[in-house]
């Protein structure tokens, strides 16, 4: 059956979702930490802004990204001139769309994991001479890793499944920007039922694996908490 099926969308989707997850981790963990340790108007504003991608229709989010990063926008022009990165109708655009749509899941999950860490544990590490960066890697990440990991899985799943935002930003150029969800839509539009079925089954399989590992992780997390307390 594999004969004749183009697996490019699957690999592109995995690559896009993987890259988006890495970006979400790098950018999201410091933000999550900041949000977990302070509680003021600025925190509330950032929190609202970060929740928007979850609530907004993907097309609306995609449109904002087009306006912000299109070739005629300041940021878009800067990226193109300086780094030769083009966002619109490119895989890079798909990565950006997936990152923005999915990162809030990581940030929310990591934030609550960080807030569970007692402030005095961080204070103790400081008084024992460790720098903030060192504390982040030797105390915060090890204590919050379960929450972070469940955020990572959710983020990866969300990035993998993104349809609307990606379509708005990077379009559907076969063998270039067509990700799995878009390929499924295209296959259905073209009346190719067998291809649609196979693609849908693959996506469902990936989603089941993600959710199953998430559930296992949450069970472990519950146990871990009791152990620490």
């Amino acid at each position: 059956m594999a004969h004749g099926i183009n697996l490019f969308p699957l690999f592109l989707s995995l690559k896009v979702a993987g890259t988006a997850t890495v970006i979400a981790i790098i950018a999201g963990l410091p933000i999550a930490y900041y949000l977990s340790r302070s509680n003021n108007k600025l925190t509330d504003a950032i929190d609202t802004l970060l929740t928007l991608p979850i609530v907004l229709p993907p097309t609306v989010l995609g449109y904002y990204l087009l306006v912000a990063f299109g070739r005629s926008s300041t940021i878009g022009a800067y990226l193109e001139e300086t780094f030769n990165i083009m966002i619109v109708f490119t895989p890079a655009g798909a990565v950006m769309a997936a990152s923005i749509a999915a990162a809030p899941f990581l940030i929310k999950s990591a934030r609550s994991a960080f807030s569970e860490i007692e402030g005095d544990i961080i204070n103790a590490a400081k008084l024992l001479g460790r720098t903030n960066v060192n504390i982040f890697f030797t105390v915060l990440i090890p204590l919050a890793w379960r929450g972070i990991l469940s955020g990572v899985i959710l983020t990866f799943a969300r990035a993998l499944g993104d349809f609307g935002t990606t379509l708005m930003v990077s379009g559907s150029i076969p063998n270039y920007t067509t990700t799995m969800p878009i390929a499924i839509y295209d296959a259905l539009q073209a009346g190719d039922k067998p291809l649609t079925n196979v693609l849908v089954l693959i996506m469902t399989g990936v989603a089941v694996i993600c959710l199953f590992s998430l559930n296992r992780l949450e069970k472990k997390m519950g146990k871990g908490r009791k152990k620490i307390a």
Partner: protein
Amino acid sequence: MLEVQIEKSLHSFHLTSSFSVGNEIFGIIGPSGCGKSMTLQCIAGLQTPSSGKIILNERTLFDSNNKVNVSPQSRKIGYVFQNYALFPHLTVEKNISFGIRHLPAYKDQVHEMIKRVKLTGLENRFPHELSGGQQQRVALARTLVTKPELLLLDEPFSALDPHIKSQLEQGLIDMIHENYQGAILYITHNLEEAYKLCNRILVYENGKVVQVGGKEEVVNNPANITVAKIAGCTNFLPVHVTKQSEGKLQLLSQNGMELVIPETIRLGNQQMIAGVHSYRLKLEKNPTGKMNTLPCQIKGMVQGITFMAVQVICKGHQLEIKVPYDEWEKLKAETSSEWYVHIPAEHLFLVPAA
């Protein structure tokens, strides 16, 4: 030697504090929210005072005028937190080595310290597998192994059961003295604990220092009614001075009770409150003719473990007297139905009327 002179405003709370500590155990007591923990956090660098100075062994840690604010990492201060704040993901050994892992021979020092605080055999346990007392020793070892110049103890016994607490108190202090020479700040809301373990005591009330002094002075001659209450005093009589002669003061209470006390330095306005600890009062059957012996009626009694707490009414004032049981048995055996209370003049103290 630690010198602290700081002010800190946070929302509606204002802390003003000034004291200096030598190589001693210095107790800081007061009700919760009075500024004790804030003081420790300012000294440790976890909070920045609004203004003032903190100097430790001639090192300026904080000086608002010269914009000095040393980071907590470089202050060389040991801090034992209220709940010990052990790293839950690290073993006993790794908890203790956390502050000295960058040193070449850190493992030897850690093992030496584990021996000294009697944690041998527990090196590979995690904090949640330890008893409260063991956790406390890990917290202490973790900070002492870094050779701090100042040790801060924030209610180190509040996380433990009371019966364990009394067993561990002296052990903790001995362990500290064997491994550390320097100033110790000991925070507690319990005066008895501070009295047992500290040399001098500072009392806070609403962010202000109300008394600093030797522990006997704080208990026997409290600066105001709050300190007296913290010191466990329950007997207060509103009085004014009627006569002052030959080193003695004559007092007259609201209800006409006459008392004599040795003249004290702390004599301000005429309206005062006389206080006396309940364990200083003597309940008697026969008037002995001693000064300040007055007839009274028994109103009620509560059984304590080591004493009978007797409530008496004397000239319309209610007084509590703690009578040891052997004395109580003797008193009950006497035939006379009259009761007298003797208020020893040397144990009466005067505080300003609130």
